[in-house]
């Protein structure tokens, strides 16, 4: 399956948006968290600053999101993880309201109630969860709903390789296979479940092999490459849409930041990230676009300017938005 010119350019620009977003967030996140304006003796204060709480960034993992979402329609459902920004951006969640949510502002997707790990955008059919493995059961549900209502919509569950050791993974794969649900399970194998490397957490090398246990196709994408993900996801999504049932895809991808911001990464060999960045998927895709005559210096810099403007605008929107009133805490427990 070959991407169209439009898809290629969309994937490139979306990867740039994701990267710019995550790198901007990494800087903004540190505001107010460092000495001397925090409790004496602390190196860092996770609860301070305009973006408090945990922060999990996806720089390096862009190919998984764009290679999959390039095939999706507005009606298709995406369920993401605790590291959700790249999926949300690729699914079309508006950047300004997402950023306002991460700042805890009333203009946010969830009026500040959810935060970075709990983004809900029903209009763009996106949600995520801070619980490992929790994306898969609801994706089965969205796929079941499509099937019951006779729609050719699909549901994507993204999850990490650590989540493949949760019961939810095995139960969901079996259920989806048994009921031939239009679901695609996309595993981001970034090699680390927080600090535990995959060799110490997982009995087999490729999670895609686990598909065989449920009688469904399992595809392992060995390179962190948007076009390879695109090809694998395209086949799986077409199969799901046409009633052929679920697929398990795993992508060997790279996490450039820590598990969370502030992670000392004592578990990674020194210099590993620098080495990983040598294989950055963004210049890789740019080179392919240039080979095909879809990108030159002028269009590249115009694209990058557009990306920076978009991300800057989203952060400005979030900063100038108001916090919700404290009394709002009691609203929305029930519909």
């Amino acid at each position, binding site marked *: 399956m070959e991407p169209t010119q439009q898809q290629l350019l969309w994937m490139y620009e979306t990867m740039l948006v994701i990267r710019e977003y995550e790198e901007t967030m990494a800087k903004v996140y540190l505001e107010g968290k460092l000495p001397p304006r925090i*409790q004496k*003796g602390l190196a860092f204060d996770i609860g301070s600053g305009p973006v408090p709480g945990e922060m999990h960034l996806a720089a390096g993992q862009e190919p998984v999101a764009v290679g999959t979402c390039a095939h999706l329609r507005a009606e298709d459902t995406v369920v993401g993880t605790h590291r959700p920004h790249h999926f949300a951006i690729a699914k079309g969640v508006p950047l300004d309201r997402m950023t306002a949510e991460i700042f805890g502002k009333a203009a946010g997707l969830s009026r500040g109630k959810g935060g970075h790990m709990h983004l809900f955008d029903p209009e763009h059919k996106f949600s995520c969860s801070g619980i490992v493995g929790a994306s898969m059961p609801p994706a089965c549900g969205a796929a079941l709903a499509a099937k019951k209502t006779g729609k050719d919509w699909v549901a994507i569950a993204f999850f990490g390789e650590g989540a493949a050791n949760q*019961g939810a993974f095995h139960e969901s794969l079996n259920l989806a296979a048994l009921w031939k649900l239009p679901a695609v399970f996309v595993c981001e194998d970034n090699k680390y479940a927080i600090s535990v490397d995959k060799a110490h957490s997982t009995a087999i090398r490729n999670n895609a092999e686990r598909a065989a246990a449920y009688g469904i196709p399992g595809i392992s994408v060995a390179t962190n490459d948007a076009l390879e993900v695109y090809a694998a996801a395209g086949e799986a999504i077409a199969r799901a849409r046409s009633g052929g049932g679920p697929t398990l895809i795993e992508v060997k991808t790279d996490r450039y930041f820590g598990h969370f911001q502030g992670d000392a990464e004592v578990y990674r060999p020194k210099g590993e990230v620098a080495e990983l960045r040598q294989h950055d998927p963004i210049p890789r895709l740019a080179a392919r676009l240039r080979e095909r005559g879809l990108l030159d210096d002028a269009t590249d810099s115009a694209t990058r300017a557009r990306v920076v403007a978009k991300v800057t605008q989203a952060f400005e929107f979030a900063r100038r938005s108001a916090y919700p009133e*404290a009394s709002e*805490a009691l609203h929305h427990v029930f519909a």
Partner: protein
Amino acid sequence: MTARKLTMAQAIAEAIGQEMERDGRVFVMGEDIAKYGGIFGATGGLLDRFGPERIMDTPISETAFIGAATGAAAEGLRPIAELMFVDFFGVCMDQIYNHLAKNTYMSGGSVHLPVVLTTAIGGGYSDAAQHSQCLYSLFAHVPGLKVVVPSNAYDAKGLMIQAIRDDNPVMYCYHKGIMGLPWMAYYEGSSNDVPEESYTIAFGQAGTARSGRDLTIVTLSQMVQKALVAASELEKEGISVEVIDLRTLVPLDVDAIVRSVAKTGRLLIADEDYLGFGLTGEIAALIAERLDQLTLQSPVRRLGVPGTPIPYSRPLEQAVIPQVRHIADACRSMMQQKLARAA
């Protein structure tokens, strides 16, 4: 005895290390507890001392490794298993609730399960609804689990050693905001002098964190530290507050609560868990049942998280989790309140 000031995380790790030296049957399993030393530092330095055979990083498979703790304990080992955040109980509650908690009883007492299940609790740093709960009342509600909730380093060490030596399952809940982590603000009163030597603190013995005459605050965990700050403020206004630190929920030191309320005549229960159907209601009921022996000066008051999940946004979170000012305001208003006259 030689004492040094330790953080609660250091005190817990020291307790585990001392028990591992004393008893070869003790070992630790959990996510990120080895190389990382525990996300909240409760197993810091133990991998280097005891090696990966006894300090075991696990896959993200809580049902499997917490269930395995039950199974290994039944075979005579003494496992410590860590549930990284208490909020993650959802993926493994069957192993905790239907097995770890019940097997001793269902076996007619023939199966002993000396498991310590450590877990991080509490909010206050904008980690939102899935990473900020306390939930100890939920575990105290289930018959068969002892529940330990320390408020400071000294207690944390003695209670951990007691927990490891106990022949029953013990849920050991440490609040993130008193662990003394270098990356999270904490109440400094939680770091205190801890003897190097091994010692135990018996379960079911509440501590008097501060003595007072006018009003009793019954509380636990980080809320003890908040209550102490409020009590200092109130002292300047002439209100003398006694702070009772429960230390364990199961067993619960009912006598200590009753003794203090008998002295002060006023009871505020301050909790970070959900207000409904939990700890605060339990203690209020215990007092209500003893009103033939006790004379109250004002109605019992409860503080807890109202019936909402923990919101992310800072102003919302600060509104639903009781703060020092909420405790102080509640005490002030209780001093003005009177009971309705009996007819």
